[in-house]
């Protein structure tokens, strides 16, 4: 077997000048500079390089742009191995780099499924070969995604699995979920749930007047809150760390908000489509707007935006779900769910900031330090920490053009959508992996 290539020689010293330093973890938001040395952050601050940059240091003039920790995308489907015609670790890494993402975590619902150590090692090896974005993976909660027998959570954690989830399937059996939550405590890992009571989730879109008009079977909002409420009882019982993925409803958010108030170890994320779109995006059977859980009513969309602003939602994940034409050009009920989101994660997430509903640091926390915290990783502008950085222009307007995505799949219902904010440079371990033209 070929020896996997190691990371390339460490880069030298790089100075980022004239930046707006943004560090959600410490609350820093000030003009200044940052110095990376090798793969790490060597120094930073408002006064750095006040007297000029020393010899032998590469300089990058940020011209007032924002410099923040690179984005941590905690929910990505790589389709590799198994569906490489939709996406590969390589194409997803390019997409992530363009999107300002420096770490991403893959769902284990590939083919083969990541339910053993070999799967975790495969992803790690492929990521090393790419030498680009840091790619991690979750393991499945249950073997073969069958919802019955637990995987080797301890060993998988030791080999690098950052948490456990059955991906797009909820762990439906309460006893299995109870044991997963209890067992996970031994390894301080987290169980991530797809929040849907399966017996209520057989439909194609959100229940409501539009589903009735289109003659499509609906998925009621209750399917989400029921699963969340059941799980919260199990969290209470076991003390296991519980994370609700892609929350889409006001009711589930209310349950999570109350649980947090009671001190339960619960966190949650949502995806940009749940606070930028509502079910009307489905319009006339637009399969690009088919996602799981489905896009909801305007009231639910507004509740997700509200929960993001008040901090109930811990993280924004792209929920990147590549689908090719064959999977989407189908009658709506038969089309696969999913939206590709790596490249638009930052720009779409900035909408609440531009609307004045959220501070920039609070928003960036949802894309960096808070998801990293849930996964016990490091994300921040701090001396000695990895120089995983993103430089972006907060104001630059643009229009989304899915045809230009680096992702192999172009399934995004955002064609022509106006955005504000553009990634200029993405840096992993001190090395640029993307520089805007």
């Amino acid at each position, binding site marked *: 077997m070929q020896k996997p290539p190691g990371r390339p020689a460490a880069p030298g010293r790089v100075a980022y000048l004239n930046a707006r330093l943004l560090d959600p973890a410490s609350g820093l938001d000030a003009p200044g500079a940052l110095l990376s040395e090798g793969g790490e952050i060597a120094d930073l601050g408002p006064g750095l390089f006040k007297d000029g940059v020393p010899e032998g240091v590469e300089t990058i003039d940020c011209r007032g742009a924002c410099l923040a920790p690179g984005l941590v995308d905690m929910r990505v489907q790589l389709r590799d191995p198994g569906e490489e015609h939709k996406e590969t670790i390589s194409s997803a890494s390019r997409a992530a780099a363009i999107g300002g993402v420096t770490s991403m975590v893959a769902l284990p619902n590939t083919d083969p499924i990541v339910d053993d150590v070999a799967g975790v090692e495969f992803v790690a090896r492929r990521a090393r070969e790419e030498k680009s974005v840091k790619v991690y993976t979750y393991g499945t909660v249950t073997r073969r995604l069958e919802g019955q027998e637990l995987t080797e959570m301890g060993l998988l954690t030791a080999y690098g699995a950052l948490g456990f989830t059955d991906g797009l399937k909820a762990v439906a059996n309460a006893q299995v979920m109870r044991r997963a939550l209890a067992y996970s405590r031994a390894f301080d890992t987290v169980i991530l749930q797809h929040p849907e009571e399966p017996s209520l989730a057989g439909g194609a879109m959100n*229940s*409501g*007047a539009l*589903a*009735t*008009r*289109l*003659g*499509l079977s*609906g998925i*009621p909002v209750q399917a989400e809150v029921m699963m969340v409420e059941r799980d919260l009882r199990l969290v209470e019982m076991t003390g296991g760390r519980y994370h609700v993925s892609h929350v889409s409803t006001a009711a589930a958010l209310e349950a999570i908000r109350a649980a947090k108030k009671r001190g339960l170890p619960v966190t949650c994320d949502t995806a940009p489509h749940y606070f930028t779109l509502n079910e009307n995006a489905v319009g*006339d*059977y637009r399969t690009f707007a088919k996602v799981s859980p489905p896009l909801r009513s305007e009231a639910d969309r507004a509740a997700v935006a509200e929960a993001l602003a008040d901090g109930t939602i811990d993280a924004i994940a792209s929920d990147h779900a590549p689908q090719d034409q*064959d999977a989407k*050009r*189908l*009658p*709506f*009920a*038969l*089309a696969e769910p999913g939206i590709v989101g790596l490249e638009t994660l930052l720009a779409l997430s900035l909408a609440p900031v531009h609307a004045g509903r959220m501070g920039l640091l609070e928003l960036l926390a949802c894309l960096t330090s808070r998801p990293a915290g849930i996964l016990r990783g490091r994300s921040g502008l701090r001396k000695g920490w990895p120089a995983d950085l993103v430089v972006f222009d907060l104001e630059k307007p643009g229009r989304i053009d899915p045809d230009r995505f680096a992702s192999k799949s172009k399934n995004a219902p955002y064609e022509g959508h106006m955005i504000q904010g553009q990634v200029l440079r993405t840096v992993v371990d001190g090395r640029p992996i993307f520089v805007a033209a």
Partner: protein
Amino acid sequence: MTSSKTPVQSGYPHPHLLGIEGLSRSEIVFLLDEAAEYADLDPHRHGRNALLAGHTVINLFFENSTRTRTSFELAAKRLGADVINMSVAWSSIKKGETLIDTAMTLTAMHPDVLVVRHPDSGAVKLLSEKVECAVINGGDGAHEHPTQGLLDALTIIRRLGRLEGLRIAICGDILHSRVARSNIHLLTAMGAQVRVIAPPTLMPGRVEELGVEAFTDMREGLADCDVVMMLRLQTERMQGSYVPSIREYFHFYGLDREKLAHAKPDALVMHPGPMNRGVEIDSELADDIDRSAIREQVEMGVAVRMACLDVLTRPLRSGRRR
């Protein structure tokens, strides 16, 4: 609905007929008027019309249907068109690649009109985007069945003289019914008061937002109605999944003389067929020609489909190929 691509000043400016929703009142009236003319033609006296001679109509059915397919076939033949019937076995295993592939194949045959029935909502619209000819929706999933809506309306107009102001009840499996949806859109657009009557498990969510009143008690719902439209209930939905049993369904939601007595004394009874006698409608009532318009509905079906084929091919026949 369809967008208007052809710059035709006709009363129906759309390239396809995919649904009733989105059609204006004047467009509906236009189609009904055209259909009324065909309804008045006696096929035995007037013989075959040569309007569509040299034109090809393909009936593409992904779902079993004898009545609708035959009706379209007869309508096309009476207009002198060449008709091809294609039945495509459809199963979830085959998925939609077949749909697009079929569309490509058919386009290469240069048909002038495609009549499509498909078990999935939205499938006919999807297909219409991939072909170059006019498409008529012959029923897609639980979405729409526009020619059924038109023929029902024409039947009512011929019996009762109007639609506006009538109180019309649609009863049965509203949840899965494309006939119900097309009728709701058409009748509300024309100013009728529409009621839907169904057991709660067969009532779609927030159906009131379509402009109808919803009832779970059939007697209440039928009170003072001018027209009672019954819907077919698929047997597989009566064995405990949506309704506990056939006999319970008939007891509460089957149309018999006693329940019909709550409607207006001369209320018209309709059914899109095929009927489940003794399930949703009393057999003897269905055959009562004074009350039941079921036979006339079939007749109007042919007239409506002739009108639709005629209207949709007009741009083509006047030399304006799309």
